[in-house]
């Protein structure tokens, strides 16, 4: 097992830096998730770590080894692709043992590890089938099994769950986590699904347009996003953003006024998560901001909670998620008074 270090890693296609000089330390034995919108360079980064894409510049280290110029086979990594990439002409057993046979392991070792992986992933009764005869979920397990038996220093996953249906996806997510804990393995996982990324990550790395936007524990990134991209990308429904200005200790934007203690004057974007918008009576005075009036445009009940679409000045509605118990006599099309949680405000400049 080993950590990974990327130094000024860059990949250029044509005139575009698809991965733009990223520096990243990936800790040993941790589950690190690269998350970002489609096309932001996650796959390219992962494939550079794997050795399948040659970097334009920069270095890649696995443990203390500089692997930048090594073939994929010499990097001691295992990879699971989105489409599983099982060898169609080989049985499940031969698929799983492929990497061991390629490395000329003894038959005893191969049998033992295949048995272990098949047991761990619950695919023992499938060993003599061909990949074409398996369901998506089963293929997924086989692909993971093929990675496990290698006992590599690093596991790389490129959106391995995105071809599964929603229910199976959540199940496999849990299973992956259990697996990572059991093996204590270094895993790097790529996804565009922010919810999945939050659920899996020990360490979250948010990417956009070829650069790292923020990294940290998922909860820290959620609680303290450092820019508007991260703030709206992580969390669902997305954080509300209100353009405004701070002047003489008061923030003002779209008719909302908030006294701020140490706000430097100038234009600023206020960020509030939907769950931090409350009815005026639901928050103690000292925790609440100054109340503001908003038109309750749409109420969407979600069971225990409800999502409100609120109209204040400007075109973009504010989204609030409130406890259904407090909905009371709230009526669509009428005005009501709301406050923000004073301790949960974000100001982006």
């Amino acid at each position, binding site marked *: 097992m080993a950590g990974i270090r990327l130094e000024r890693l860059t990949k250029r296609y044509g005139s575009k830096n698809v991965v733009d000089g990223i520096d990243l330390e990936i800790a040993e034995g941790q589950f690190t998730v690269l998350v970002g919108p489609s096309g932001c360079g996650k796959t390219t980064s992962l494939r550079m770590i794997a050795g399948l894409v040659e970097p334009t510049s920069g270095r890649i280290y696995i443990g203390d080894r500089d692997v930048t110029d090594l073939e994929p086979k010499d990097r001691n990594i*295992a990879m699971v692709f989105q*489409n599983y990439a099982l060898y169609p002409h080989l049985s499940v057993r031969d698929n799983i043992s492929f990497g061991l046979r390629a490395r000329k392991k003894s038959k005893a070792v191969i049998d033992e590890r295949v048995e272990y992986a098949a047991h761990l992933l619950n695919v023992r009764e499938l060993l003599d089938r061909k990949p074409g005869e398996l369901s998506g979920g089963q293929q997924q397990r086989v692909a993971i099994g093929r990675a496990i038996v290698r006992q590599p220093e690093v596991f790389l996953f490129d959106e391995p769950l995105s071809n599964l249906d929603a229910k199976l996806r959540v199940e496999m997510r849990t299973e992956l986590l259990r697996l990572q804990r059991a093996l204590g393995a270094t895993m790097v996982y790529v996804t565009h699904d922010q919810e999945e990324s939050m659920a899996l990550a020990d360490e979250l790395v948010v990417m956009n347009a070829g650069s790292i936007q923020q990294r940290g524990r998922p909860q820290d990134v959620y609680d303290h996003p450092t820019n508007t991209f991260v703030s709206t990308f992580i969390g669902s429904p997305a954080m509300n953003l209100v353009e405004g200005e701070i002047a003489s200790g008061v923030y003002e934007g779209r008719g909302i006024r908030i006294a701020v203690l140490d706000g430097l004057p100038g234009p600023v974007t206020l960020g509030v998560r939907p769950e931090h918008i409350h009815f005026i009576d639901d928050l103690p005075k000292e925790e609440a901001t100054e109340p503001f009036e908003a038109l309750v445009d749409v109420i969407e009940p979600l069971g225990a909670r409800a999502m409100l679409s609120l109209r204040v000045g400007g075109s973009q509605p504010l989204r609030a998620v409130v406890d259904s118990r407090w909905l009371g006599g709230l009526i669509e099309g009428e005005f009501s008074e709301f406050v923000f949680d004073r301790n949960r405000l974000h100001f982006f400049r």
Partner: protein
Amino acid sequence: MMNRLRRVLIAVALLIVVFPYAWVVISSIKSQADLSDPTRLVFTPTLVNWRAVVEGGILGSAATSVVVGVVTVVIALISGTLAAYSISKLRTGGDKTRFTVLLSEMMPPAVLVIPLFFLALSAGVRDTLFAVIPAHLTFVVPVVTWFMIGFFDAVPDELEEQARVDGYGRVRAFSKVVLPQVLPGLGAAAIFAFILSWNDLFYALILAGGNTRTLPVAIAGFNTFRGVELGTMSAAILISVVPVLTASFFVQRRLIQGLSGGGVKG
């Protein structure tokens, strides 16, 4: 109503396809006298034509054709497959190449045959198989390449990449993982390539029309100064056509898939 029309159309199509073959089969077992009246359907079958053909050395020419075909196919498969892999997976030459591969097929053979003739002459291989095989390669290799591009396109890149991560170098990943996926295509390409070579008359006639005659050249030889020897020619044509028909029948599905080849992907 529609059904009836369909059946009639199919019957007509069948007739058009089968008629010439039936005609040739019948002609090959008619005596010279019976042949002079093409409409005569009642006659005593005879094997004279077949005997004449066999004794006239047609089988030797067929063997020559087989040798030319097999050598051509082996060379064309190796170079065409590697070229197709390179064009499909490594994007060699960009998308332009995949469509210009077949360009050489549009060139009239007459353009190439003169330089080939002089090359053969100066290399001292005129009227040998060494003159015919390179000539056949000029039109067989592009077709095999085109054919195989489509099959390589259908193999996901990840399969090869997975093999490279799992411990194979490029060559082994290609030969042990990618190649098995295109094996059915390779088989169809081999048969198709063989048929192309087997059928060629033009190059074979000009480059080796003397002692080392291929089957089509030998068949053309029945058009003698005494007139066309219809009976023997028919027997010879059957010898030439039956292997082709049989082979095409077994690979027809792959054949269609392969012929749509490099054009599938943009």
